[in-house]
């Protein structure tokens, strides 16, 4: 963009006091772009491996169930639920509701609690079935 570098920028992340609404907004972008890159590539890898044959699928499963694989999958599943719940929050805000300070703060925090709870529940189900 054509702008002089000597002109001051408006205050950005460094100057504001962190609050739940700010955190949930930033996390929506972080999780969205994480899912759009790592998540989408993982999905395509899984589908392509399944389409290619048993050996390619075995390679995928070997990588996915390695310690790093589990870390990535658990991280992405948390990203997924965080993006899902803050996406649902967006639908409510899009309707013009939930802007009162108290409610906004409450539901911002609720997205984090919900995403962590559901992520934990899903992995408990998976590991529970394996036992």
């Amino acid at each position: 963009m054509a702008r002089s570098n000597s002109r001051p920028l408006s205050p950005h992340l460094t100057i504001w006091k962190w609050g739940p609404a700010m955190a949930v907004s930033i996390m929506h972008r972080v999780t969205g772009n994480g899912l759009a890159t790592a998540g989408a590539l993982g999905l395509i890898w899984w589908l392509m491996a399944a389409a290619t044959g048993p050996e390619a699928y075995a390679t995928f499963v070997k990588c996915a169930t390695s310690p790093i694989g589990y870390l990535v999958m658990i991280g992405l599943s948390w990203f997924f639920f965080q993006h899902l719940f803050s996406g649902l929050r967006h639908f409510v805000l899009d309707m013009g509701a939930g802007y009162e300070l108290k409610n906004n703060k409450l539901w911002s925090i609720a997205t984090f609690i919900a995403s962590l709870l559901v992520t934990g529940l899903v992995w408990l189900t998976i590991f529970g079935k394996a036992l």
Partner: protein
Amino acid sequence: MGNGTGIGRVRGLGSARHGAHHWLAQRYTAVGNLLLTLWLLFSLLSLPGLDYESVVGWIANPVVAVPLMLMVVSIFMHLRLGMQVMLEDYVHDKGLAFFSMLVLNFYAFGGAAAGVFAIAKIAFIGVVKP
């Protein structure tokens, strides 16, 4: 027909009435993603196993292959719109912005095509014997 703002009228840049298109498409695909990814999640969790035969046998089913294709398309449309907004915010250099949008479009269309192709191959050929 609206005529845009005064200054826009003077410049001949009145409302094209497409202002909300990106925003709405982001919401439509979000609803698609919500329904289809939750369906995939619950389906995978209720499969007897996630080994090659179980997964391929499941995807080969027409009532699975079609929604799975729709999910891939909805996901890649949604991520194209979302990443576009991120790039517009952070990539300020005009040339680099054009290039990153080009790469994003290649990624989004390429990814969707790869996913749909993989599902179609599974649906038409099914389990491949080693």
